[in-house]
């Protein structure tokens, strides 16, 4: 189930959640009002309220991406031989210790890849923002991609848009390089 959002087109996810956040008919307010947390007469408008819009879009971004990393990490975990865990159990390691002192170091390579991916993905998010809010309300959810797109195909300032794209590219590369560098550790062989 976790993985399913990954195969849905991002536009479908965006429209689906737009409807979930719909103040009058949405799933979210429907649920919240049925347990009495919000009133039916003045339902919160999640996506058009500047205070909540950003966090609502962020939540969808998380929702859409968790599955991929669940699968990525479990694939990596399957490559770890069982004996190592058995040895740790025999030695009396608890689950906490097993997780922090064995699983994390063993998966470090994968974590590093995921971290770099995420750093790059965090700078994108265009499709979701474009469909859900168009960058609004009042630029509250605007991402770099949205600015570039509007500059190029809304205002037809092609040169300006290209310049911003180059800057975005440089920032992305820097962030990716930093993410890679900061997460560097000795490789654990198994």
């Amino acid at each position: 189930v976790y993985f399913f959002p990954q195969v849905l087109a991002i536009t479908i996810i965006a429209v689906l959640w737009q409807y979930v956040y719909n103040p009058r008919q949405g799933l979210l307010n429907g649920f919240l009002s049925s347990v009495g947390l919000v009133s039916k007469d003045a339902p919160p408008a999640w996506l058009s309220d500047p205070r909540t819009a950003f966090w609502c879009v962020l939540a969808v971004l998380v929702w859409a991406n968790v599955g991929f990393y669940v699968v990525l990490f479990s694939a990596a975990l399957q490559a770890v031989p069982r004996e190592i865990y058995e040895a740790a159990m025999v030695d009396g390691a608890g689950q906490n210790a097993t997780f922090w002192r064995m699983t994390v170091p063993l998966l470090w390579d994968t974590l590093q890849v995921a971290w770099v991916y995420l750093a790059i993905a965090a700078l994108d998010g265009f499709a979701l923002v474009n469909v859900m809010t168009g960058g609004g309300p009042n630029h509250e959810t605007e991402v770099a991609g949205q600015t570039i797109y509007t500059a190029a195909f809304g205002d037809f300032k092609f040169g300006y848009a290209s310049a911003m794209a180059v800057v975005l590219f440089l920032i992305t590369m820097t962030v990716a390089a930093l993410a890679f560098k900061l997460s560097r550790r000795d490789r654990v062989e198994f």
Partner: protein
Amino acid sequence: MPDSKDRLIRPFVHAGLIFWALVTGGPVVWAILSSLKTEDDLLSRPWGLPSKLEFSNWVRAWQQAHIGRYLLNSALVVTASVTLTMALGAMAAYALARYEFRGRRIVYLGFVSGMMFPVFLALVPLFAISKNLGLIGTYHGLALVYAAFGLPFTIFFLTAFFRSLPQAIAEAAVIDGCSHFSLFTRIMLPMAKPGLVSVGIFNVLGQWNQYVLPLVLMQGDESVQRRWVLAQGVRNLAVTSGYRGDHGALLAGLTLSMLPVLLVYLVFHRKLQEGLAAGGLK
């Protein structure tokens, strides 16, 4: 004792997993159920089950919002572009992995550096080039661009894969009088099948999910709008049904566009997950 603490944590871990499964599946199931509701039901009881099944939403989504046509367009473009990506990618990767020639490294790096190249950097020049070539708003124009963006990763992945295949079999085939071409098609390609499947899945999903490329490359009047892909169709449906207050059609359209993917996912989910995870781990 670590043991007793573990037993305390365990229910919370399970509850967390179940909670996330509900959060993931919930909205999807809810949208499908709601697509069968009447407009009254949608307004008055967003959280409840449909009081009677209303299939007219689906009819409207199919006929007025043309979801069927957009699905077909998407399928057409993705089929063409993935075929092209895989054919070109496999041939290029094979040559790069198996033959020594001058400038091989440069060519390889040239391809692979494309992975670093973000869509946004290319957006404006891409639009200009497509426009000058008369490719704006055409199926083949879009498919070509998809293939171009799909190639770097495909070549990177398949080169590594072809390199890992045993050399001895290829040598035996050559001794038996196998030509270069049939060595590729009859021996190497079948051996590379797992890799091809993985990267193929990766490409299908990636290109099916494209949003900004069609948005930029498929803009135009009515005749171009007939060739819109699903992403644009769904977005348009969201806008128009918002104006008209026709939420039933919106949800039905969403359901219709999710169903094919949902079916494919239910049949192939293991393969899909393996493919994507392998792609991510390389």
